[in-house]
């Protein structure tokens, strides 16, 4: 907990953790053990940071041929910044057709 009397600058310098809810399909659903999974990110809220966190929490993601993230129904690159109200979906290698 923050002590009272600390300035605004000190407050904003504290790492902030945000929780993101992800949908999972295909093998991703098997890896996380459900249709949804919550991932917490601290300070960096990019797609790249999310993928790293996923691979750290669930090492099986490292074994996949590819790992993509869709945000609001669009593929996004690692630099894309996530919002907590985005629809974020883990896209393991697709295999339609």
């Amino acid at each position, binding site marked *: 907990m923050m002590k009272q009397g600390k300035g605004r600058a000190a407050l904003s310098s504290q790492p902030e953790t945000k929780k993101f809810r992800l949908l999972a*399909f295909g093998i991703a659903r098997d890896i996380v053990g459900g249709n949804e999974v919550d991932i917490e990110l601290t300070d960096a809220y990019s797609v790249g940071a999310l993928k790293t966190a996923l691979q750290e929490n669930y090492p099986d993601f490292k074994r996949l041929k590819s790992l993509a993230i869709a945000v609001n129904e669009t593929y996004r690159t690692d630099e894309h910044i996530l919002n907590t109200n985005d629809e974020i979906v883990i896209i393991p290698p*697709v295999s339609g057709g």
Partner: protein
Amino acid sequence: MIDIQLLTTSLDTQECIRLVEHPSSGGTAVFIGTVRDTTKGKPVIRLEFEAYKPMAIAEMQKIAETIVDRWSALKVVIHHRTGSLNIGEIAVIIAVATPHRKAAFAACEYAIDTLKETVPIWKKEIFEDGDVWVAAHP
């Protein structure tokens, strides 16, 4: 001009061919993807398909729009099925009508190749002794 469907029921080849009829069409190419009975010599019992539906439809729409732009297609139909499919059942139908035949073949091949790379649909092969998500691992 473009008809995209993600269906849980049997796909209808005749319906797809009818949908791409056009007076200016000189050729229609149709790709029909079916469930094969073996993978690397191992008997397959059935396939189970699932999709991230809204994005799968959006990505198939993009493919169809590219075909209209690049090959001057008159009509493009992509119907994909989800759920449990038995051997021989149709998983996908792509039909493209163009003024000249070469464009129809090229566009149809582009459609299925791109679908397999970008459309968020996944299939699991069910074997006697287990199951495997297709193409998940290197």
